[in-house]
């Protein structure tokens, strides 16, 4: 094998998004289970999660190369090829997400959107009503509250799978994906690095898109019109 190169693949917005989401996810887990006394903070943090996820969706269209859906959502052939590498534990140098990881990103984002979406319509049968609960019947709000509780189990499962996958990469394929998500830098074969030309979008654009996402959440929550 030829020499290794250090390639910057994850921009700061992606990394900040990821780790903020981890912290918020832990808090949502705790505050969701801790009971009604934490509900108020659960709701507030939920708005933050929704803002972050909406930002990430926008960043998937307007962000840096490896943040874009178009760059990491690949066809079945690539996924099978990737799976084969994983099974044989042969290193498969992908600068951004590997094909399976890419789809996992989409699944995680969709599950989070569903979680936030159902939360907006939920109620706790005491005093809390999600900001959109008044748009649907009580029975529907109750149903969506139930889905909110159930979908969290799915999220836990997905998060667990995500963690197992990166640990598998670290343990069996000698790929330090976790470190890369902190530093943004991946170590990979120089040959593969050459093909990893990355265009980084401006962090100011990221900030602007985050503001757009947060403003959209504000409009959903306050419905000033």
């Amino acid at each position, binding site marked *: 094998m030829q020499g290794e190169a250090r390639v910057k693949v994850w921009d700061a917005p992606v990394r900040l998004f990821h780790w903020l989401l981890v912290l918020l996810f832990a808090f949502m887990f705790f505050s969701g289970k801790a*009971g*009604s*006394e934490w*509900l108020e903070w659960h709701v507030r943090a939920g708005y933050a999660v929704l803002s972050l996820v909406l930002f990430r969706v926008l960043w998937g269209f307007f962000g840096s190369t490896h943040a874009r859906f178009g760059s990491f959502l690949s066809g079945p052939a690539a996924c099978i090829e990737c799976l084969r590498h994983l099974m044989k534990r042969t290193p498969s140098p992908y600068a951004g997400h590997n094909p399976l990881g890419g789809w996992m990103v989409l699944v995680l984002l969709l599950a989070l959107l569903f979680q936030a979406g159902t939360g907006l319509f939920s109620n*706790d*049968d*005491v*005093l809390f009503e999600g900001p959109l609960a008044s748009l649907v019947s009580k029975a529907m709000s109750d149903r969506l*509250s*139930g889905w*909110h*509780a159930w979908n969290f189990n799915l999220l836990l499962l997905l998060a667990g799978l995500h963690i197992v996958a990166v640990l598998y990469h670290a343990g069996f394929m000698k790929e330090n994906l976790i470190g890369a998500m902190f530093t943004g830098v991946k170590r990979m074969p120089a040959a593969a690095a050459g093909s990893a030309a990355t265009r980084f979008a401006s962090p100011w654009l990221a900030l602007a898109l985050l503001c757009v996402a947060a403003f959209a959440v504000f409009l959903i929550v306050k419905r000033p019109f």
Partner: protein
Amino acid sequence: MRTKLLAAATVIAALGGASLEALAQAKPDVLVKQRQAAMVLQAKYLGPIGAMMKGAAPYNADVVALNATFLENLARMPWDGFDASTKGEKSKTKPEAFSDPAKFKAAADQLESATAKLGAVARAKDEAGVKAAFGAVAKACGGCHDSFREK
């Protein structure tokens, strides 16, 4: 006249007792409906006070007094509906409501005492007292749901 009235009252009281007994023998699915009805009405009368506490609606001492009095009475109604015979009925009640009756009773008592306090200050038109007492009522609702109701 007086004796007749007394006799009538005795008959009515006896009938009342009889009907309470009949309630205790109500079918499990009916008991579930009845306890849920009590809860639904609690939500009805809690909601407007909650809106006033949040500042979403202007404070109205008369509405608060009426609603708090209703709540105080409604708070005593659901519990005999959690009869052991309802264990297998479809509802959001967790098994713990039946397996840990002491804790369940404590949670029920908490709501009764919290709503009694709220009723007293509400009827006295004591706005500051209502603000102080309201939190305990909401907490009693939520606390009991956390322990005994499925999400």
